């Protein structure tokens, strides 16, 4: 009897330990990500005219894209995978230049540790892209969804260029869609290891340089490429869209600072 009571006590003690680590205190702090759209060193202004390296002019009217599947690389090469859930849009972010709140969001909770790199998809992974009606940021009613070849628009840039061959000189660079289109992965090394502790997190401030949309891995020329809405035409735009991002700087963020904002 005494033996059995001891075993029960031990089991209860183990359960209470598990309760502390799983259900009790959070497993870490959120990590904040802020994105600024720039052209070279200057903030992007919708409607402003910019020039490509080849001398073509362009302006942006609308810039929206999905970021998802965030991972943080630890110094030892292992990864923290940002949680996503099948029955919500948690972990899927719709960034819109015209919506300031959309350019700052949080991933995590991130376990304490030392992190050396950030990875994410520009777009939506194939599994979720084919998974049926979604909610939240992935609600197809948000207009980032193709109906003529069902799937999410990963990256949407609408603007103008006098060089555009379109009758109204429009530029419509839409990447993504159905048919099992693959979203591009981006890996950004952090300039110095970022330490997340029990009471300190960080804000990673990313710059997305729209000049690199035209002068990236491929040089895009509005005279010949002004409308892209299918995978073949958008392949070069998709490549370039994954090359816009860099870590501009990193803030340390005390736990108290995380409570403010989203």
């Amino acid at each position, binding site marked *: 009897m005494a033996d059995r009571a001891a075993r029960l006590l031990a089991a209860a003690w183990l359960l209470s330990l598990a309760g502390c680590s799983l259900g009790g205190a959070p497993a870490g702090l959120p990590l904040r990500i802020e994105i600024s759209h720039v052209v070279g060193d200057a903030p992007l202004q919708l409607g402003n005219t910019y020039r490509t390296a080849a001398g073509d002019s362009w302006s942006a009217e609308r810039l929206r894209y999905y970021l998802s599947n965030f991972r943080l690389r630890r110094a030892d090469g292992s990864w923290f995978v940002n949680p996503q859930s099948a029955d919500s849009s948690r972990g899927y972010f719709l960034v819109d230049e015209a919506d300031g709140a959309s350019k700052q969001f949080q991933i995590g909770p991130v376990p304490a540790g030392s992190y050396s790199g950030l990875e994410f998809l520009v777009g939506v992974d194939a599994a979720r892209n084919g998974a*049926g009606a979604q909610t939240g940021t992935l609600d197809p009613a948000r207009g980032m969804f193709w109906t003529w070849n*069902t799937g999410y628009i990963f990256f949407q840039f609408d603007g103008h260029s006098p060089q555009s061959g379109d009758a109204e000189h429009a530029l419509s660079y839409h990447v993504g869609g159905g048919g099992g289109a693959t979203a591009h992965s981006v890996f950004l090394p952090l300039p110095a290891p970022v330490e997340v502790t029990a009471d300190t997190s960080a804000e990673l401030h990313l710059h997305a340089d729209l000049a690199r949309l035209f002068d990236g891995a491929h040089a895009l020329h509005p005279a010949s490429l002004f409308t892209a809405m299918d995978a073949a035409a958008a392949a070069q735009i998709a490549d370039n869209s994954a090359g816009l991002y860099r870590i501009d700087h990193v803030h340390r963020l005390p736990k108290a600072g995380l409570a403010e904002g989203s």
Partner: protein
Amino acid sequence: MKRSTLLGLLALPLSAALIAAPWAHALIAARATPQLQVPHGWPAPHYNFAANPVTPAGFALGRRLFYDPILSRDGSVSCGNCHQQFAAFAHLDHRVSHGIGGVNGKRNTPGLFNLAWQPELMWDGSVHQLELQPVAPISNPLEMGGSLALAVDKLRGDASYPRLFAAAFGSPGVDSQRLLRALAQFTGTLVSADSHYDRAMQGREAFTPQEHAGLDLFREHCAACHREPLFSDFSYRNNGLDAAPRDAGRALVSGHPGDQGLFRVPSLRNVALTAPYMHDGRYDSLQQVLDHYTSGIQSSPTLDPLLANGITLNAGQRRALLAFLDSLTDDSFIHDRRFAQPHD
């Protein structure tokens, strides 16, 4: 005898009491709600309702939405306008779909049944999952002419839909996911598997000699594409309608030049009910369809190799094949009151 009379006397008031009980109404509602049952010998469906279980309130909501023109921009056109149950949910006598303001669509309205088994939807396979299909007609300017956001706004402002959505999904809220899932509960349970052909294959009825001859001809000439038991292999093929396709078809979705003029192989179940035929509704009768396959095939670079030499049929064989195609009509499906326009 005595015992059965006694049982009957007992059962009468008992059944009256059962019908009066609230849970009996739930039982009756559940019986009026179809579930996706895989007919014997059929493959596993692509859409299996795992994340969207069919409930009486969910199915009833989907059915009501299917027949409600509120989903179109100006409230004039419902899904049921072009998908008529008596035509196995195709559009009888209409070559192409008709949208708001009387505009004509570009393609023939297909029948709706056994959609859960279709790996992709639409003539060109542009929709990859059953729940998302309604987004296409809702937002097509030639069909319902609105948008998913507009449809959701109208439903939110409606006098009865917010209550019906809450009943169907267990909490208040109207959003596009619930709209699309409710519609899928209706469209995904439209199962047609009770034709004379099905009963004959199960040994419950017998083919006439002519129907049997037609089955043999069908298996020889047609079944490579119109594969049993769904009567389609769901591939995309050019069946030789035009030397130069007027509609790029599958190529619009895939971007491959080799897909010019390819369209999804349609199921032949209920084919006698779904005239006119082909993606553009160019043929009014099955006689014309057989004329096409026997003497009308147009050669082109993307013509399906199986049709390079057409199909040879004499007059008796044509009659036998048509008799077999008639055996694919599922009368219980087109008269199933669970799928009819609700009157409430």
